[in-house]
């Protein structure tokens, strides 16, 4: 199904992207009346996390940037390989943080023009990267949204897997990764029989198309199963080596703590903190106070919390406790992002309707008709849903920590796991507090 639907969906999304860029540059500059800010900051973010939670990395699977890149490669063939020294997640982490910073600093949620420029920036970047460098260098090493999706989709029920390991063992072509005539193999260089989990997988299904034995499928299983065990066998070893990489660990930490930062930055205490900082530093430059807030959430807080947790856990766990437990941050991190984005998406789900109606210059609709259409889901439902999603994230991390501890600290797994349990509970409590505060309604109405 993904194979068949991928191309038409990409075409539709590419056209939509162009329409949003146009509306962002030339349409009403009042965010709640502009499709660009509505679709990008309300609908796209919400659908992204819901898609990951319910199925798999659907957004990378349908990304219009890939179609754009493929069209460009008909004109210019890339000649270079991505530099070995940059084959890490560090560039993408830096871009992820930069995009978040720009979002906060220039209030992109309230700026159709700024949001359009961001979209143009994505198109420009993939054009430069993937027309110079071979394979899916942008997806694997650069795209900040892709990195978010890779980490989040470790919790997805869906995963690209092989149907029969015996078939792979007898295969001599390795077409799934090397490609076949007129069919490219995996451009992210993932070898399906040795792949575990969704890290770096864009669900492009190139491997399935290239496989001469029809031996690749999207299978489903328990969400988070790849995190629950220190897995063995070849695929498990590959995944465990990934968790032990400093750049992958940094990506997971950035993913988790950026979720807290993104939610916190929208509420009153964050604004008051920045004002106090500005007064203390005698500055009116928001970049300074924002940079300090970012440093607190993305450097200081992780260093202190993870350092203390790892120290307490190490007493009962092997020396590499941090590497073993870092992946267990993913469920609570995704829980925070999903709770946050689903709130904005569900409460503003249909707010684009009157905006789209006006943008298309359709016949006027009387006031009462618009007022009678519920523009979103009631907060009587969304608030418990938000807390429920956060709670499930907490449960996932608790399970993951306990399971991984029992694999490596067989004498007393709980003694190794409890500091991590405490950390997850603290993150959940903080997030729940933030979610109970009035939030800037970014995208649907101006925040203060």
């Amino acid at each position, binding site marked *: 199904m993904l194979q068949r639907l991928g191309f038409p969906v990409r075409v539709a999304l590419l056209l939509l992207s162009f329409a949003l860029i146009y509306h962002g540059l030339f349409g009403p*500059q*009042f*965010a*709640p*009346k502009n499709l660009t800010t509505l679709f990008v900051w309300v609908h796209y973010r919400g659908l992204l996390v*819901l898609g990951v*939670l*319910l*199925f798999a990395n659907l957004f990378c699977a349908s990304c219009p940037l890939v179609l754009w890149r493929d069209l460009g490669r008909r004109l210019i063939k890339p000649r270079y390989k991505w530099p070995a020294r940059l084959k890490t997640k560090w560039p993408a982490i830096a871009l992820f943080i930069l995009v978040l910073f720009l979002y906060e600093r220039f209030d992109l949620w*309230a700026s159709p*023009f700024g949001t359009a420029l961001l979209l143009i920036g994505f198109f420009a970047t993939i054009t430069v990267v993937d027309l110079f460098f071979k394979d899916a260098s942008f997806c694997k090493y650069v795209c900040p949204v892709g990195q978010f999706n890779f980490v989040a989709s470790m919790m997805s*029920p869906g995963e690209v897997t092989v149907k029969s390991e015996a078939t792979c063992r007898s295969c001599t072509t390795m077409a799934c990764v090397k490609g076949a005539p007129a069919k490219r193999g995996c451009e992210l260089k993932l070898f399906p029989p040795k792949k575990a989990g969704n890290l770096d997988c864009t669900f492009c299904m190139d491997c399935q198309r290239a496989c001469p034995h029809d031996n690749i499928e*999207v299978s*489903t*299983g*328990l*969400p*988070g*199963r790849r995190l*629950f*065990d220190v897995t063995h066998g070849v695929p498990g070893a590959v995944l465990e080596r990934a968790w032990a990489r400093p750049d992958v660990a940094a990506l997971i930490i950035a993913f988790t703590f950026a979720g807290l930062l993104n939610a916190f930055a929208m509420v009153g205490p964050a604004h008051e903190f920045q004002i106090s900082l500005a007064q203390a530093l005698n500055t009116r430059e928001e970049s300074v106070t924002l940079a300090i807030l970012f440093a607190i959430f993305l450097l200081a807080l992780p260093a202190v919390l993870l350092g203390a947790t790892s120290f307490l856990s190490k007493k009962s766990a092997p020396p590499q406790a941090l590497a073993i437990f870092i992946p267990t941050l993913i469920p609570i991190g995704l829980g925070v992002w999903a709770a946050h984005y689903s709130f904005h998406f*569900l*409460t*503003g789900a249909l*707010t684009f309707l*009157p*905006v789209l109606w*006006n943008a298309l210059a359709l016949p006027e609709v009387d*006031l*009462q008709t*618009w*007022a*009678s259409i*519920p*523009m*979103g*889901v*009631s*907060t*009587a*439902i*969304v*608030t*418990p*849903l938000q*807390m*429920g*999603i956060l*709670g*499930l994230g907490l*449960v*996932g991390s608790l*399970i993951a920590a306990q*399971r991984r501890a*029992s694999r490596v600290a067989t004498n007393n797994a709980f003694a190794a796991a409890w500091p991590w349990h405490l950390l997850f509970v603290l993150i959940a409590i903080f997030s729940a507090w933030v979610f109970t505060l009035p939030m800037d*309604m970014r995208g*649907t*109405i*101006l925040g*203060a």
Partner: protein
Amino acid sequence: MLKRFLLPLTLILLSALPAKAHEGPPYPIMVDQPMERGKFSVWADPDVGEGTFIVILETEKEEDLEGVGFEVLGQSHKNREPFAGVKAERSPEMDQRGNLRAYTAKLPFDHEGKWRVAVTPSRGEAPAAEARAEVDVDVTPPGPSKTEFVIFIIPFIFVGLLWGLLAFKRRRA
């Protein structure tokens, strides 16, 4: 494959029941209502106790932004008392690039139910009655009651327990 998604899908779909009445963040109730030398739009957050109305004025020329005011009035369908209104205050922190100005009004709603809301613009001292726009809104209590919260959180508790059971059952297997 579909069977594995039935539970999460059902939970999400049940949660996405359309709101009978809106609660939560402001939502648009009037879009691009014409007035002399401009137009206005209104976002409403009609909670019991105090409802918030944000009026956005847009004009072609910057000078047409001056001297404009808005009155926001409410009348309950239940008791049909005369409209009671407040003057919307300027909210410069919500102003945007271009010729856009924001105003905020807070109307007291002493009970839930259907209310008729009217917004009348004025230039200078004179209200522009011909530009008055009226619409019915549902005023509701803000946020979920304790019972509603418990009812809607129960599926998540169920899913969490099931998830844990399956995760540790796999281990034993």
